[in-house]
């Protein structure tokens, strides 16, 4: 765990840049993480996914999988990959300030 500054806030992150405390997150932090990961601007569709991820994590203690995102976030899987290239679940979790999804066990 290391401390860094994102959008002017001192925050703790893991070696891959995931926030370790979801409570330290705000929307400015989200926007800066997004920019650092190749998403210049978070659109309404991005937010729909990021907010859903956070909500679920805070409720269940685990981040939803891609399949759950596709079924329940209101954004189909194909579009998820357009919005968050490479790995939507991972990138949306990072932007949403929650720990890296572990794919359960």
């Amino acid at each position: 765990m290391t401390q860094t500054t994102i959008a002017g806030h001192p925050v703790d992150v893991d070696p891959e840049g995931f926030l370790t405390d979801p409570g330290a997150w705000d929307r400015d932090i989200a926007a800066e993480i997004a920019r650092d990961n190749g998403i210049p601007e978070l659109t309404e569709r991005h937010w729909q996914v990021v907010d859903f991820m956070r909500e679920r994590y805070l409720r269940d203690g685990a981040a939803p999988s891609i399949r759950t995102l596709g079924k329940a976030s209101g954004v189909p899987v194909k579009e998820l990959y357009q919005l968050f290239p490479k790995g939507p679940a991972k990138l949306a979790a990072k932007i949403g300030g929650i720990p890296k999804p572990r794919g359960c066990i």
Partner: protein
Amino acid sequence: MSSRVVILGGGTGGTLAANRLHRALGDAIDVTVVDQDDRHVYQPGLLFVPFGLADPDHIVRSRSAQLASGIHMVLADVERVELEQRSVILAGGAALPYDVLVIATGARLQPEETEGMLGDAWNEHVFTFYDLEGATALRDALAAFEGGRLLVNVVDMPIKCPVAPLEFCFLADWFLRERGVRERTEITLATPLDGAFTKPLASQALGGLLTEKGIALEAEFATGRVEAGEGRIVSWDERELPFDLLVAIPAHGGAAYVERSAGLGDELGFVPCDPHTLQARAASNVFVLGDAANIPTSKAGSVSHFEGETIVENVRRMLAGEELRPSFDGHANCFIETGFGRALLIDFNYENEPLAGRFPEPHLGPLPLLRESRMNHMAKLMFEWAYWHVLLPGRELPGISNEMQTAGRHAPES
């Protein structure tokens, strides 16, 4: 009057819970188990069927025969659960009222969730060994396999027995060597995980074994569709992997009735519950056991066994109006066949990832953890007897506690 306990599912979890509850609470409860058929498959045996190491007929027994006398069995499909009415509605409309409900209907394979998986090639070039029919068809295909690209693909998590795809790769390597066609075969494991397994140290150890055996790993591969005609799978981000023979582990969901039961399950049909008391989030008189639960532990028979004690204690407390005991720690214990008569053993829970050490006795063992040994393989084979005669009757395995032990555990020497 005795309390009515209805258990949905007569598999590993439902059977051991029924037998334990019946023994512990006797005449105070009336136990009914519901399942759609009377065929109890010893699921760990499915891994061995494709390699001719287990006879499909020998790993299936009657479900009702595993239940102690005095337990009722109803053979029927479940239409839905009505939480408010405390009633299970069976197909055809009959109602089965309950005071306490235990959900143990496991996980269901959903090959139809992946575009192109079911089609002409299903059980021809595209197989799964996760059910008896598929494992048997795959046995015939592997016996006739003359080399080419063997692709093992985990479509999505969660799956039952997350180590089974690895074991399949290890056993395929052994089997094809024995048959003399390994040199003409490329084996690849494609997984949505970022490594061989979910837990870091075990993932390293198992990844090392894959490399040693010349098995390629395609990590972070999220399967979008199967193009069976072209012989390839394509990920959502348009990576392509070719195959001559595809062994797919399809996406899993919960039982179909869960989706028809208002407020009970999540989007995938699994049932959210407290990870320590196993009480369903949806209703205080509903408990969840085994693969059906949405909790962060493995979907594995050992987990159902370790949950058994917690279920019995908490059903008793619920009926007595006492506070529940949060005793389940996420304990899982899995043998991992590595081929050539050897196996690895891992032991872990919510808090502790699999480490090296000895099991079940710290320092003494006799079984080594996170290391290949012949004795682990023998123990895995002997486990089948224990499954039918100790686990399902709801007895404790001698020397093996439900809570995970941490004494003598350490990171493996690399």
